Each structure stands twice: as structure tokens, then as C-alpha cells.
């Protein structure tokens, strides 16, 4: 295969990954690395570098749309970014010392877990919680436009959310994914932030988190321009199109199919990691 053919195929695959990722809300990065390593036989370190770059592109593109709607909370985002960027640095350093087999197995486990999370029914939102002392001191409580007008919320359990965010950052730096699922888990489940605010603030944070590890990947020579070019352009185009058609599309079946694909890819990554083929 020559470079031109390789570039076109990778761009098409990335476009589909970006489209499905944004339609299902599960993110394109999560299937990119398995796609590149299993089907295109790319070394996992190059794949993670390229994926990280595409994560910055899609999250910044989407965040630009969300931030104007007034759902995201810039203070919660900024405070938690201390945890995610520190975690991202640790994850990126770890990625440079562990074996590629270990990376493949961890990646597979994360895929299986995110498929499980996407199928789990969401617990009902708790409203009108009392203000928490720490969250109040940090001025995190806010309000957002809902159907019933502006709705106020009080943020809970800041330390638990902060620790989970460190883990989300470390996974992002280690595997080159946005780990939006863990970020939403931290904000929505631990800190009891309304779902709409959690998802948009998480999207806002993904780009900053990925940038923290991307610098290290760049300095280590893990970001290859020839590979990153079709991946970044393909994922960006796919996710921008996905956002456009999202309003009209019926995503329930799509989500189910996509979670099954993620399970298969996760099992394959673990198998190839254990048998040493990655």
C-alpha cells in the first residue's frame, strides 16, 4: 500500500469514527486507536498520538457551539482542569515507559467499561440539594437555562469529583482518548451536577486535558504528521457532520450497534495485547 492509498483509507475510517462518535455521544477517539492498530497495523504509540490530536479538534469544535448556549460552567471546568491536566501529564509519562502490550490490554478494558456505561440506565437527577460548604467557597454553584426557566444547582462532593477527574486525565494521557465518560461520571454521579451542565462542561475540559498530554507526545516524537493529517481531518469532518444531523436522527439503535462494535474491538485489543501481536 502506498502513502496516498493509506491516507485515503485512514481518512475514510476516521470520518466514520468521528460521525458515529458524535451521533452516539460516545466520542470518536475510543474506536480510532483499535481501528488504526487492528486494521491498519499502525504501532499503538503512533495511533495514540494521532487520536489525541483528533480529540483536541473535535472537543474544541463542539465546545465552541456549547459554550454559547450557556450550559457549561467555566469555574467548575477550570478548577477540575487542575486535576485532569496533572493526571494527563502522569498518564503521558506512563505511556512512554510501559510496554505496548500493556497499553493494548488497558485500552481493551476501558473500551469494555465504556460500552457498559453507555448501556447502563442513567439514575434520576437529584434536585434541590443543600449547598455544600467547599463548593460554595469555591463559588461553583450555578444556574442554567432549562425548560422551566433558569434552574439553580448546588455542587456536591468536590474532593470525590476532583480525584475521579485525576483518573480521567491519566486515562486520557495514557490512551489518547477524551475519556468524556469518566468526566461525566465524576460530575454527574459524584458531584451531582445536572446532566446537561456535566456533558457540556466535560466537552469543554477534554481539549485542555488532551493538550496537556499532546505536548509530551509531540516532544517524544509520537505524533507523526503523515498519520495525524488524515486522522484529524477525517474525524473533524465526521463529527461536524454528526452534530448537524444529530437533531433528526434516531440514535437508540445506532447506540446499541456502536456499543456492540466497541465490545468486539475491546475484546480484540485485549486478545492481541495478551498474545503479543500489538
Amino acid at each position, binding site marked *: 500500500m502506498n*502513502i496516498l*492509498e493509506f491516507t485515503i483509507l485512514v481518512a475514510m475510517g476516521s470520518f466514520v469514527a468521528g460521525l458515529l462518535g458524535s451521533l452516539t455521544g460516545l466520542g470518536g477517539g475510543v474506536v480510532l486507536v483499535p481501528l488504526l492498530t487492528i486494521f491498519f497495523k499502525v504501532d499503538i504509540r503512533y495511533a495514540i498520538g494521532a487520536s489525541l490530536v483528533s480529540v483536541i*479538534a473535535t472537543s474544541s469544535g463542539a*465546545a465552541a457551539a456549547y*459554550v454559547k448556549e450557556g450550559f457549561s460552567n467555566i469555574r467548575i471546568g477550570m478548577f477540575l482542569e487542575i486535576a485532569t*491536566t496533572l493526571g494527563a501529564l502522569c498518564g503521558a509519562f506512563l505511556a512512554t515507559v510501559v510496554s505496548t502490550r500493556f497499553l493494548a490490554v488497558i485500552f481493551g478494558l476501558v473500551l469494555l467499561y465504556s460500552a457498559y456505561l453507555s448501556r447502563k440506565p442513567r439514575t434520576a437527577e437529584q434536585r434541590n440539594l443543600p449547598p455544600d460548604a467547599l463548593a460554595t467557597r469555591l463559588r461553583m454553584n450555578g444556574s442554567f437555562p432549562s425548560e422551566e426557566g433558569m434552574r439553580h444547582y448546588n455542587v456536591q462532593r468536590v474532593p470525590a469529583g476532583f480525584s475521579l477527574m485525576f483518573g480521567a486525565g491519566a486515562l486520557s494521557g495514557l490512551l489518547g482518548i477524551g475519556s468524556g465518560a469518566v468526566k461525566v461520571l465524576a460530575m454527574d454521579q459524584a458531584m451531582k451536577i445536572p446532566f446537561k451542565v456535566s456533558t457540556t462542561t466535560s466537552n469543554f475540559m477534554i481539549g485542555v486535558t488532551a493538550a496537556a498530554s499532546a505536548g509530551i507526545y*509531540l516532544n517524544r516524537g509520537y505524533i507523526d*504528521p503523515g498519520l495525524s493529517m488524515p486522522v*484529524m*481531518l477525517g474525524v473533524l469532518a465526521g463529527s461536524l457532520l454528526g452534530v448537524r444531523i444529530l437533531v433528526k436522527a434516531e440514535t437508540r439503535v445506532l447506540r446499541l450497534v456502536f456499543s456492540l462494535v466497541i465490545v468486539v474491538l475491546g475484546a480484540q485489543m485485549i486478545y492481541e495485547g495478551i498474545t503479543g501481536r500489538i
Partner: protein
Amino acid sequence: MTRVWTDRKIEDIVGNLLISGVLLSAFVVAVGGAIYLIRHGLAPAGYHVFRGEPSDLRSLPGIFHSALGLSGRGIIQLGLVLLIATPVARVAFAIWGFAEEHDRLYLTFTGIVLIILLYSLLGSGSAF
């Protein structure tokens, strides 16, 4: 009320900043990609073996030098640096916003995040 108004204004500017950064970097990457494909499109592709990038595609001075020499790979890499710089610019901008609001607590938090990002982009190469 002033604080809320400033927050919204900041959010609007941040939104525009993000989208411009992404579009600009995608454009630069596409230009570099076209040059790269025209020159090397028919060479065999090989990403199976990890070699690591040469030093002129790893460090900021090397990337600028390579892009100025109109190397396709150098221009793509410059576009990717612009992309990585977009969230960094967003954080730097938030510092300005919190300074306007005299919010010293969040000025500190944002400063910490900016230092971590700059360390990763500029300082992490020499450490090893």
C-alpha cells in the same frame, strides 16, 4: 449582575476563539497534507514499526524551521501545534477574564493549569 454579564461575554469570545483555532489549524494541516501527498504519495506507507519522529518534527524551533522550508510534514506539524495551542490560548484568555473580575481564587487556579500546559508543550522535551 456585572459578574454574570462578564462571564457571558467571556464565553462568547472563548467560543469564537476555539472555532477559529480549529479551522485555522485544519487549513494549515490540509495545505501541508497536499504538499506531502504530491511529493511522497507513491512511496510505500509504513507505520507498523515505531521509529519516533526526527528531532526537527519534535520541538517547536525544529517544526518552525521545517515548515518555513515548505516541507509538507513540517507544515502539517505546524498545523498540529496550532491545534494544541488552541486550548492553551483558551486558558490564557480565561486568566485575563478572571483578572477583569478581580477573582483572585480563580486567577490562581487558571494560572496553575496554564503552567502545566506550558510545561508539557515547552519543557517536557528537555527533561528526558
